[in-house]
């Protein structure tokens, strides 16, 4: 036994946010698995209730609490762990751990930091210290100096000479970083950076150099290997998280590859890292000069990518090494016969592409640079770069066929796009080539290595060989070449002017099909029984031994994007576990490197592949499964149901025709009418005039949904003719083929979620939760309360009754979700999804009944008990709160609306609403205590509505500030609030200056209308608050609940209780076999 640990505490990374996404669910989960294998008791702190790591079958004890020194210390006092893992929860866990160490808390309680020591972590996070450390062993770093103030930064910058790169310490995702060309830009950058970090680094700009990463592991015996290296297609200046990344490196010679590798080993040894880390290099494309950019002494996005790219379970191994194991003694998890002390040899190429959702944010800039904006990423595997690249582009789920042959991508000014890249840059390259730009020229503009540009050009060449055959079949050889270069049937069809089906028919007629290849970490040098698979047309022999019996295909959730993220990965992983428990063989299909579902030990076979009809049909043909489960991975697989069914794949669960009926607004609306269920009046309109007429008839405001073809054009709410016209004219053509859907927007209404599982139309279990916000805030951005606390029983009764009716009418078998709007007991249905919904992990974990487990049983016709007792009997409350990432989206207006804009969520428990609510709010970045609040409560209606709360705050002795209008109104109602001047207004420092000076603990700013467009002063206040890291509330209901809660409760009242301490009561209460424990086998 290399270690003697009894109980280890693991810190998670809380809600998914830009820069810290699903990868930390993967790493935390693997760490817990490693600890369990050692029979060490595990305690997890992570408020992210949608994750797999907070599933009951993993950690022994789970705390849904903020990753914050106060709460973590509380848990330490209570649980008395003897060890703690800081490196599996991203920057959040790392920084929290550093703070605990500084306070001497860990020492005081005898908690050992496992793996890399705190001192070493400091040395990697403190960019100045880091520089010194590397100087000690003569390793090159960029010429730089660190500053703690604006003045210092200015002086250093002029010394180093513009352009300079600004980087913040103790940060990730490039927060606060950027290249500055002049002093003005520098000041702006540094001020914002210092609001988030105590330290900024001013350094020489190396923009345009190659950016290369190595993933390194080291054990206590000083064995040290690089598991994977990666090359960024986008050169230095674009964050690795914003870059297209390829593994292994493609343009490095043996000398370069091993020179950098050797430096990596020297650095990691000198720093004394134990476990896993990531090191980033800048490499001069014209000489052998290099610089070390940084070391991340923890699991990271890159390490998750490297794990999936190589099949080497970095997080699992890192955890074992932290416990003192030798790399030598750990088996290679893929071959099971060889050692983990080796460097995987790939016989394929991997391409990762980030997914952006920038169009979802009002006023957000679409430019990409040294700080992260992407919300997710995809990884594709192929035996040609072109093949992997085109696969990856399709995986983004943005509707593209690949690199070329796309209707929806239109690149504006090509040259501008190449010079100043946005999220569209990759498409600008083929556009430029088509427009006659030379590779040389594109290279000058983008600094992208010509090797990549030539590859992109190859794709165009292949397309040119296809085009002459437009209209008819093309010769077999040419089609085969297209497939080898990653063209999809749809793409080929598009180029030949035929539909996807005919293109597929042609391919099959030629007998062209992909082969299955294994990922075995050793490039076939040793036999390996691996179940980690991908498809390629660049091969003649399939590694597959033949199909499994009793297998079931589970479709994953694909790329994380706004609206679909880790919650669906939890559903898929849980589904696979249940299938195994029931004796089936789950086959997972997914391509998201940030997920647990793409860990090959979670399923019997893992296809790291596209979720498209073409790919799934091929897998289905090879695997001959009992059927396909489409209801777990969210909207991506759900949208495939009908297509797959028509292609002859057997869909398990609710019939595809029913799914279609619910998805289609017309048929669903008709169904509701037939069942006598209310819905907001809506109409599909084909002209602006008709739209106005409808709006006047039903009365403003109206909700406007442009048809989906107008990509990027979001939903919105119009309060008058003016807004409606402006919006519709922006939505380009409103016409027969591009109709617009208007619905009566119901104001001051409650929104209610109904999550349930049914079999043959009969409901087995249901859960109702209410939104804190009124309808009008997207359900994904809403604060959910379960069970409901402020909804009339009569309303709840109606909701359940309607749920039963719809389940029966659609003969639902499996999970489903209905959204309701309720006002004075008039209940209306706004939509219904015949699949698992975002809230499933939340309600499952809060009430202790695993809805997914139940659903899978129903879907496969296995015994599934009915859960009679209603969640009303819960003795605790769960609150789910959204996490926004506005800080990272320069200029974006941080308001909520009918379009979802949050990037993640947390879910916390309490014995009453306020306890759970405060815990959740603290988990997403709000802070206690609150002593000084800035109020700006918007329209009169809201001002009146908030008065009582303002009084409450005043009585609690909280100092109130307010913009003039609000201050005046409050004064009339006996509330004293210091009026602060607007910008450019006389009378002392204006509101923006006060914000920048961090004079407020909280800002409450309620927007005037649903759809603020112009750059109002309110916008400036909201944005300033975000940029200077001041907590901001923009919803009236949330403001009211939060202010009440913080008056009624203090930190001390927030119980440090584990999930079991709350939920156990529930599981006893109902004699349910289907508790979360059931599938923990």
């Amino acid at each position, binding site marked *: 036994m290399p270690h003697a640990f009894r109980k280890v505490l693991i810190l998670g990374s809380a809600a998914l946010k830009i820069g810290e996404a699903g990868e930390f669910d993967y790493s935390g989960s693997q760490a817990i698995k490693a600890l369990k294998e050692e029979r060490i008791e595990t305690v997890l702190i992570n408020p992210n209730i949608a994750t797999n790591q907070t599933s009951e079958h993993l950690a022994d004890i789970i705390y849904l609490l903020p990753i914050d020194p106060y709460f973590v210390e509380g848990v330490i006092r209570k649980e008395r762990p003897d060890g703690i893992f800081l490196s599996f929860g991203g920057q959040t866990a790392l920084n929290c751990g550093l703070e605990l160490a500084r306070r001497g808390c860990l020492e005081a309680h005898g908690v050992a930091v496992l793996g890399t020591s705190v001192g070493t972590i400091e040395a990697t996070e403190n960019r100045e210290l880091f520089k010194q450390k590397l100087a000690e062993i003569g390793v090159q770093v960029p010429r730089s100096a660190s500053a703690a103030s604006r003045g210092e930064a200015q002086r250093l910058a002029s010394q180093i000479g513009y352009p300079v790169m600004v980087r913040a310490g103790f940060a990730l995702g490039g927060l606060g970083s950027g290249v500055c060309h002049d002093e003005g830009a520098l000041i702006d950058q540094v001020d914002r950076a210092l609001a988030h970090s105590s330290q900024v680094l001013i350094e020489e700009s190396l923009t345009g150099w190659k950016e290369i990463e190595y993933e390194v592991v080291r054990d206590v015996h000083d*064995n040290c290997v690089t598991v994977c290296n990666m090359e960024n297609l986008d050169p230095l200046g674009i964050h690795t998280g914003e870059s297209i990344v390829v593994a292994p490196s493609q343009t490095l*010679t043996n000398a370069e590859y091993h020179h950098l590798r050797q430096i990596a080993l020297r650095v990691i040894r000198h720093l004394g890292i134990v476990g896993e880390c990531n090191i980033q290099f800048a490499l001069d494309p014209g000489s052998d000069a290099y610089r070390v950019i940084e070391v991340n002494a923890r699991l990271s996005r890159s390490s998750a990518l490297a794990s999936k790219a190589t099949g080497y379970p970095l997080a699992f191994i890192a955890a074992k090494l932290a416990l003192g194991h030798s790399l030598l003694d750990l088996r290679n998890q893929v071959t099971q016969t060889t050692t983990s*002390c080796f460097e995987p040899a790939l*016989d394929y190429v991997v391409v990762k592409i980030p997914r952006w959702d920038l169009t979802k944010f009002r006023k957000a800039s679409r430019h990409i640079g040294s700080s992260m904006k992407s919300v997710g990423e995809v990884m594709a595997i192929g*035996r040609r770069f072109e093949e992997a690249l085109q696969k990856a582009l399709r995986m983004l789920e943005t509707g593209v066929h690949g690199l070329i042959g796309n209707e929806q991508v239109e690149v504006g000014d090509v040259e501008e796009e190449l010079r100043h890249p946005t999220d569209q840059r990759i498409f600008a390259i083929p556009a430029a080539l088509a427009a006659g730009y030379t590779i040389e020229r594109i290279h000058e503009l983008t600094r992208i*290595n010509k090797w990549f540009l030539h590859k992109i050009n190859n794709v165009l060449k292949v397309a040119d060989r296809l085009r002459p055959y437009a209209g008819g079949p093309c010769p077999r050889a040419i089609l085969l070449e297209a497939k080898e270069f990653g063209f999809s049937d749809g793409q080929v069809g598009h180029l030949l002017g035929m539909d996807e089906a005919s293109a597929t028919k042609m391919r099959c007629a030629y007998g062209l099909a992909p082969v299955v290849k294994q990922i075995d970490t*050793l*490039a*076939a040098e040793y036999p390996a029984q691996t179940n980690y698979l991908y498809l390629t047309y660049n091969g003649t*022999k399939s590694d597959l031994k033949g199909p499994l019996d009793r297998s079931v295909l589970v479709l994953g959730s694909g790329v994380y994007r706004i609206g679909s993220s880790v919650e669906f990965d939890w559903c898929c992983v849980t589904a696979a576990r249940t299938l195994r428990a029931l004796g089936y063989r789950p086959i997972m299909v997914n391509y998201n490197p940030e997920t647990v579902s793409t860990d090959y030990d979670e399923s019997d076979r893992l296809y790291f592949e596209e979720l498209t009809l073409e790919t799934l049909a091929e897998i289905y043909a090879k695997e001959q499964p009992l059927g396909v489960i489409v209801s777990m991975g969210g909207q991506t697989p759900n949208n495939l149901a009908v297509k797959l069914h028509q292609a002859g794949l057997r869909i398990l669960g609710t019939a595809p025709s029913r799914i279609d009926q619910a998805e289609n607004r017309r048929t669903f609306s008709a169904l509701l009418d037939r069942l006598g269920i209310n819905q907001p009046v809506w109409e599909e309109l084909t002209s602006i005039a008709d739209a106005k007429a409808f709006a006047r008839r039903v009365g403003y405001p109206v909700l406007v949904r442009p048809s989906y073809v107008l990509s990027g054009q979001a939903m919105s709410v119009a309060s008058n003719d003016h807004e409606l016209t402006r919006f519709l004219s922006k939505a380009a053509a409103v016409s027969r083929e591009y109709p617009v859907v208007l619905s009566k927007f119901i104001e001051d209404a409650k929104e209610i979620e109904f999550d349930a599982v049914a079999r043959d139309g009969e409901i087995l279990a249901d859960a109702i939760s209410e939104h804190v916000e009124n309808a009008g805030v997207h359900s994904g951005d809403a604060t959910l309360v379960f069970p409901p606390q402020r909804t009339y029983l009569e309303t709840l009764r109606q909701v359940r009754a309607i749920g039963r009716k719809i389940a029966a009418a659609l003969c639902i078998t499996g999970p489903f979700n209905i959204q309701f709007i309720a006002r004075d007991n008039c209940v209306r249905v706004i939509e219904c999804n015949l699949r698992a919904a975002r809230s499933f992990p939340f309600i499952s974990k809060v009430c202790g009944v695993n809805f997914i487990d139940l659903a899978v049983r129903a879907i496969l016709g296995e015994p599934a008990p009915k859960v009679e007792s209603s969640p009303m009997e819960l003795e605790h409350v769960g609150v789910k709160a959204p996490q926004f990432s506005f800080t990272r989206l320069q200029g974006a207006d941080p308001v909520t609306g009918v379009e979802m804009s949050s990037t993640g969520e947390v879910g916390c428990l309490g014995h009453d609403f306020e306890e759970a609510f405060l815990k959740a709010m603290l988990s997403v970045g709000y802070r206690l205590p609150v002593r000084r609040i800035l109020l700006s409560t918007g329209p009169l209606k809201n001002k009146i509505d908030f008065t009582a709360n303002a009084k409450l705050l005043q009585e609690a002795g909280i100092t109130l500030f307010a913009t003039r209008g609000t201050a005046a109104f409050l004064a009339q109602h006996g509330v004293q609030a210091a009026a602060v001047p607007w910008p450019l207004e006389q009378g002392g420092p204006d509101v923006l200056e006060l914000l920048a000076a961090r004079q407020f603990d909280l800002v409450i700013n309620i927007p005037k209308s649903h759809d603020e467009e112009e750059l109002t002063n309110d916008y400036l206040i909201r944005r300033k608050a975000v940029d200077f890291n001041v907590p901001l509330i923009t919803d009236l209901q949330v403001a009211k609940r939060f202010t009440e809660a913080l008056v009624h409760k203090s930190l001390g009242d927030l119980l440090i209780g584990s999930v079991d301490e709350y939920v156990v009561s529930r599981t006893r209460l109902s004699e349910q076999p289907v508790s979360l424990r059931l599938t923990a086998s």
Partner: protein
Amino acid sequence: MNACLTLKDGAVFRGRPFGRKGSVAGEVVFNTGMVGYPECLTDPSYSGQILVLTFPLIGNYGVPADEPDRLNSFFESERIRVAGLVVMEECTEASHWQSSSTLADWLAFQKVPGLAGIDTRAVTQKLRTAGSMLGKLVYGDDTIPFRDPNHENLVARVSVREPVRYGTGKKRVVVVDCGCKNNIIRSLLRRGVAVTVVPWDWPLTDEACDGVVLSNGPGDPQTCGTTVRHVRALLAREVPVFGICLGSQILALAAGAATYKLKFGHRGQNQPCVLHGTQRCFITSQNHGYAVDEKSLPPDWLPWFFNANDGTNEGIQHRSKPFRGVQFHPEATPGPCDTEFLFDEFVDLLS
């Protein structure tokens, strides 16, 4: 024009020819390294072999300019040594500041045939289970017989004819050239010793020197009887001896141990080797099909390193005398330089 790889067991893999338009026969081996094709192709140990690279994209960074000096910094010998090359994709638009020609042009210029568009993973799986196999690259409808290079004295073909002297320095090391990689010589010169490279069959008994390095080389150590005899005589003297790869096998034979052909040869840059009696493991570059039979070591010899994957011997050393050999390549190129320190240790041994 099309071409194919034909294996002794009858398997045929069709692809596109590049490089020299012609056919060749030899022993088919694979290498799993992801970088370093210029180094690989010029490694004399590959003489007579058709090399299959498992990494699919080859030629990405082109081929650096050749330099007249034998020790020019990129190649492991003055020309391409493999009989033929098999890849998934050969890159036609190389991109690197040091590149002076494409892989195809280089092969063509040196009259070596290449074959692209091959499922190299499938070929590797065959070779893995069959052990290495005879095969041929057939261009068009040529007909050529199979040919087993292991029955020929490959070493004699790749070795220097006359002694060659390099560098100056108080200490002099004799390198017995059985197919020596340039970087072995470079590694010695870098440490300030003078080097004399002698032919494989050079009598060593009365060669005045401070140490002897037995180089790597192609084929079966059993075919190097002469060298073995000379080394056996050499061991009578106390001169430090350092064997590398084939050199280590020759040292073992000279010491009276036996060698055998491995089922799965070690061919890659990721071979983990453990220093006996420690927990220290080094990632090494390897390319060999034969190994020393540890059990056959005489009592005054000890195993030094072993392979962490299959436990086979990776190095031997004498209990009391300065005689050592390693199965892997401390000189790397291609591959990791984790074990370069062995040259320091050797140079320190020089009296």
